[in-house]
């Protein structure tokens, strides 16, 4: 298996088309595929169809930059830095995006069903809620392109007469999954350290998997402890070496989230003008990760550098 190492620019050009359904790895402030997201914005992809559980800085950026047409999600925010994502909120209220709400378990089960080839998946979660009663996507969009014919269906448990109602959900099989991992072996094997969120399910469910990684390591290293590996080599379509590739979100064992940058973003995100300035300053000018990191600056990167024993930056000023 030869490792398909690419630049972010080439990977986006080759694998991401306008209108694609895209799953974003990570969770709110952790392991967002930021490098590739900035490249998607630079290449001005349009009408993307995001499928996520809880995002996140990457979703904010993509929505804000006008790349997104529709979103299926459970949570749109950047934790304490934006309990509701500013760009997400604005685009929703201005009806620039169509949003379909699910719960985190719904989304995760749907990725799992896609990954496992299950025709559908059922849960009790959400019965009698407006999540299962209402739909944010227009009726005309249903059943077209990647939009499933039904958001979900409520049915009686077919096996247990006392089982009551259940929520039946369609699987997700995104066109592309974007994952940021700590390690990829030079055989292609991918290892995520710390919590995997739903990244593994997303990658297995997707037609194309693009992985950005902190380090490419020898096969001997990554295969010494295969219990820790996350995805087999043949599952990965493109690998992009990406030091600090999740910045300003965290990457366990490598760096913490960047509170300075996230607070800056928090200030610039709400208004269109200042958000545009953010893009002009932090996204458009950089055609290499090195250029971007120079702009972030070594002082900042040293502050968020993870302690080897802890995996985060102890004592970091996180206010």
């Amino acid at each position, binding site marked *: 298996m030869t490792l398909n190492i690419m630049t972010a620019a080439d990977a986006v050009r080759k694998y991401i088309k306008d209108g694609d359904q895209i799953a974003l790895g*990570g*969770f*709110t*402030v*952790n392991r967002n595929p930021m490098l590739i997201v900035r490249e998607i914005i630079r290449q001005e992809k349009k009408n993307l169809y995001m499928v996520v*559980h*809880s995002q996140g800085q990457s979703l904010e950026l993509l929505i804000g930059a006008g790349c997104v047409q529709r979103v299926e999600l*459970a*949570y*749109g*925010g950047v*934790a*304490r830095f934006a*309990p*509701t*994502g500013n760009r*997400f*909120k604005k685009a*929703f*209220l201005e*009806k620039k995006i169509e*949003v379909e*709400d699910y*719960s*985190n*378990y*719904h989304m*995760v*089960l749907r990725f799992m069903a896609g990954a496992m080839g299950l025709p559908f998946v059922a849960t*009790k*979660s*959400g*019965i*009698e*809620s*407006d*999540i299962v*009663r*209402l739909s*944010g996507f227009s009726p005309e969009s249903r059943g077209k392109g990647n939009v499933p014919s039904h958001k979900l269906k409520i049915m009686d448990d077919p096996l247990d007469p006392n*089982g*009551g*109602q*259940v929520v039946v959900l369609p699987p997700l099989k995104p066109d592309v999954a974007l994952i940021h991992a700590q390690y990829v072996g030079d055989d292609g094997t991918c290892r995520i350290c*710390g*919590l*995997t*969120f739903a990244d*593994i399910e997303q990658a297995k469910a997707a037609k194309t998997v693009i992985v950005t990684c902190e380090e490419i390591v020898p096969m001997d290293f990554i295969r010494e402890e295969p219990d820790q590996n996350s995805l087999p080599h043949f599952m990965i379509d493109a690998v992009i070496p990406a030091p600090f590739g999740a910045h300003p979100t*965290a990457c*366990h064992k490598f760096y*913490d*989230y960047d509170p300075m940058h996230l607070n800056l973003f928090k200030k610039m995100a709400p208004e269109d003008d200042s958000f545009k300035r953010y893009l002009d300053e932090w996204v458009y000018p950089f055609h290499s990760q090195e250029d971007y990191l120079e702009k972030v600056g070594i002082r900042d990167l040293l502050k968020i550098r*993870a302690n080897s024993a*802890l*995996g*985060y930056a*102890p004592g970091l000023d*996180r*206010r």
Partner: protein
Amino acid sequence: MESYTATEIMALSAGRLVHNGDILFAGTGLSMLAATVSKRIHAPEATVFFETGGIDPSLDELPLAVADPRVMVRTSVNTSLADALSLLCHPKFRTIAFLGAAQIDCYGNLNSTLMGTYENPQQRFPGSGGACDAASMAYGVIIFMQHQRRRFVEKLDYLSSPGWLTGGDARRRAGFKRGGPIAVVTNLGVMKFDEQTKKMYLDEYYPITNPEKVAAETGFHLDISRARESLPPSDTELTVLRQDVDPQRLILGPMPVTSITQ
């Protein structure tokens, strides 16, 4: 002037509801404080876990997000959303979820999604995240709210997380096998739910307020007939909370005025 803040008594009031051995589904903020303080004081065998998959982290530093790398350190297991969310509904465990929301109704149903409609949206919140799942599947739910009429509403704009639904046995009839809100902890007091009707009533009000004031801040009729004053925080509770749980006051915020001046 009290010698503790609303945030402090909220964390402690919620912490008092935790039983030893509970499996606590924590968010960040207040729920982290409540979970941690209860573990240090009266529920040492309670376990904290996060929907992101971190089970029982050491929490040497307070995480500010459920995806904070601080929830991945010296855990019992680092796992995934699928595992963490399925732990919520494990029938073997008393799983208690701490939730917040933008709106709550008298049956403890929560809105964390939107105001208005999809067609004509007035406001947007982040969405339920794992809250709908916790409200559906956990053994019990403890809700944190800011006590304001616009948040305690007669009718939710959107029901994101099922509480007692329309009250009485509605929740069981809907097919939920367990769960439902246990208490609502606000900056004014602690609300519980009537055994029969499942309607919210005032159980405790903090020494800083009185039942009538609480009712006046509630957008639906709140039964205050059973209300009693909360026990004020003990010295032990405050000491543990301030010195042990959040010494940097990352979540606690500023010290109360009297304490600062002491």
